[in-house]
């Protein structure tokens, strides 16, 4: 019988909604809009937050520290090399492909570099802005020394594979290679003439596998890439389709103890001040940023809900007035004041639930489609995944229910207090 009562009221409510379609549509819309604003904004913010959090968490897990080079004119390579010795420092940057030729008097090789560090992977190797990486062991010759940079010596270190291709039957040490000038260059690199570089060292080939950068990135796969050439000089690249934000390089300190950030400041004193940011600081910053955003949207949704509740009260009082005859009959046949109130509160809750469900579906649709479109437009740099926080759903549900109950109490009390005789006559 309880089930019968529930469905009885539910059917009655459905009939009332159909009968008073416009009025109920207004009420549902009034509740739905703040629900959508709240859930959509929170879902987006949570997704951005957790995606960034995961990214930085990856750095933290891999002992990466972030060094901001945006205001620096010099890369910290020499200091890092001093510090790390043969341990080799690698850094990552987010970029697309680089294709360039390296040739000698007799041979030419075409080097294609894929560089990327996704939030799933980290691997070293990129020549950029005079900086260098050497994630492999020295085989012969020497590594770069400080004077190579300060005197801007045209020197290069090759991997053994490139060296064997360029100099199949000769010792490459002391020989020269030429990298021609290309018409296009990636933003952020130093413009140079065609350069001829003397080979000062050979390192082990760091080519792990042949990868298709774009495909890998699309599939969000982690991968490593080859580093075949290291130079102190910037190189003009051909077919560079994209160079991402080069403000940040990530120095991989995993084999070492965690560096004091002021260590870099100390060794670069008078030259460059590097801003080193740690994981906790980054997380704390994005937390503050996103919490502020959330509070803003929460307040906005709250205001919308209050306005909706106010209009809901007047709409429901009007609905009660229209149903005075029905109320009279129910009271005549034994409905107590409490039951009358609970009937109307039930209706309010069901309307709220309905608005919440529609709002939830619309929000999910908006967030997923928004992220999908953004991903289509930005396939390379997009690493966000949609994160639906249960707390957000619960919070929205709670807010909607509280608004509905508050807005329904006045009409429900009004219905409960209606005089039976007046109501019966009304019919």
């Amino acid at each position, binding site marked *: *019988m*309880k089930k*019968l*009562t529930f469905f*009885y009221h539910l*059917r*009655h409510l459905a*009939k*009332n909604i159909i*009968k008073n379609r416009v009025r109920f549509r207004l009420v549902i819309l009034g509740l739905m809009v703040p629900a959508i604003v709240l859930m959509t904004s929170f879902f987006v913010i949570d997704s951005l937050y957790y995606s960034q959090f995961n990214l930085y968490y990856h750095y933290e897990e891999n002992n990466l520290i972030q060094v901001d080079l945006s205001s620096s004119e010099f890369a910290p390579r020499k200091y890092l090399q001093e510090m790390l010795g043969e341990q080799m420092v690698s850094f990552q940057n987010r970029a697309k492909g680089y294709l360039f030729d390296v040739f000698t008097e007799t041979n030419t090789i075409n080097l294609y570099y894929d560089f990327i560090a996704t939030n799933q992977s980290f691997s070293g190797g990129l020549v950029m802005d005079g900086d260098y990486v050497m994630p492999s062991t020295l085989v012969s010759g020497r590594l770069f020394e400080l004077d190579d940079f300060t005197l801007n010596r045209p020197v290069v270190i090759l991997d053994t594979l490139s060296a064997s291709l360029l100099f199949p039957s000769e010792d490459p040490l002391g020989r020269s290679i030429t990298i021609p000038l290309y018409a296009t260059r990636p933003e952020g690199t130093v413009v140079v003439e065609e350069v001829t570089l003397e080979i000062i060292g050979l390192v082990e080939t760091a080519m792990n596998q042949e990868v298709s950068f774009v495909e890998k990135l699309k599939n969000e796969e982690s991968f490593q890439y080859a580093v075949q050439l290291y130079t102190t000089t910037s190189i003009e690249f051909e077919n560079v389709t994209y160079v991402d934000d080069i403000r940040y390089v990530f120095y991989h300190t995993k084999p070492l103890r965690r560096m004091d950030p002021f260590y870099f400041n100390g060794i670069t004193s008078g030259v460059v001040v590097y801003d080193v940011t740690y994981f906790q600081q980054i997380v704390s910053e994005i937390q503050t940023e996103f919490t502020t955003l959330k509070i803003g949207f929460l307040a906005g949704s709250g205001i919308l809900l209050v306005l909706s509740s106010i209009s809901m009260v007047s709409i429901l009082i009007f609905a009660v007035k229209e149903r005075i*005859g*029905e109320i*009279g*009959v*129910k*009271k*005549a*046949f*034994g*409905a*107590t*004041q*409490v*039951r009358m109130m609970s009937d109307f509160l039930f209706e309010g809750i069901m309307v709220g639930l309905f608005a919440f469900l529609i709002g939830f579906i619309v929000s999910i649709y908006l967030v997923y489609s928004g992220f999908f479109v953004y991903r289509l437009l930005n396939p390379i740099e997009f690493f966000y995944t949609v994160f639906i926080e249960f707390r957000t759903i619960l919070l929205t549900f709670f807010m909607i229910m509280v608004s509905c109950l508050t807005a329904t109490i006045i009409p429900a009390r009004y219905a409960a207090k209606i005089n*039976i*005789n007046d109501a*019966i*006559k009304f*019919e």
Partner: protein
Amino acid sequence: MIKLTNVTKSFGDLTVLKNINLQINGGEYITIMGKSGAGKSTLISILGLMDLPTSGDYELDGQNIVHRLDDELSRLRNEEFGFVFQGYNLISDLTVLENILIPVMYSRKKQLDEAYLEDLLRRLDITHLKLKVVNKLSGGEKQRVAIARALINRPATIIADEPTGSLDLGNRDAVLQIFRELNQEGITIIVVTHDITLTKDAKKVYRLSMGHLL
């Protein structure tokens, strides 16, 4: 048994019922007649516990109910009385069955005797209508639905306010026949009307005039 003692009902300065004394024994069939404005509806409201007297006593089965709480009066209305109104007072967008079940929905026991329901529908010849929305029914059918609703909780008393006022002769006779049968089964019938033809089955006929019961 219903017993009113010196019942007076006033609305502001207007006294509608004046020192009404009335005793209705269980199983009686009584008719209360009176012109419009004589206070019939007010009396029926008080008899049906939909309103309380300004002064005087109301005893229901020996219990004075004048000072009972509103919820208690609701329970008594639900369990002891069934109402039939001139304008049917059915909820127009509900089906016949949903209208009939209203008293069950608001009863404390919330127990539906399905066999009794089926019997009631058959007896009032509305079985075939039970899933129809009431606003599609004729006047006679509506009044039979209203009677079924009044009877669903097996009340001791049926209070009918001008029950045939909106019906044609054929339907009027059918309704009166139902009341007659119900009374023969021991249900107290109280009919308020200004139609003298409704008094023929009544064991007692009262006349209400200027607030006095004669």
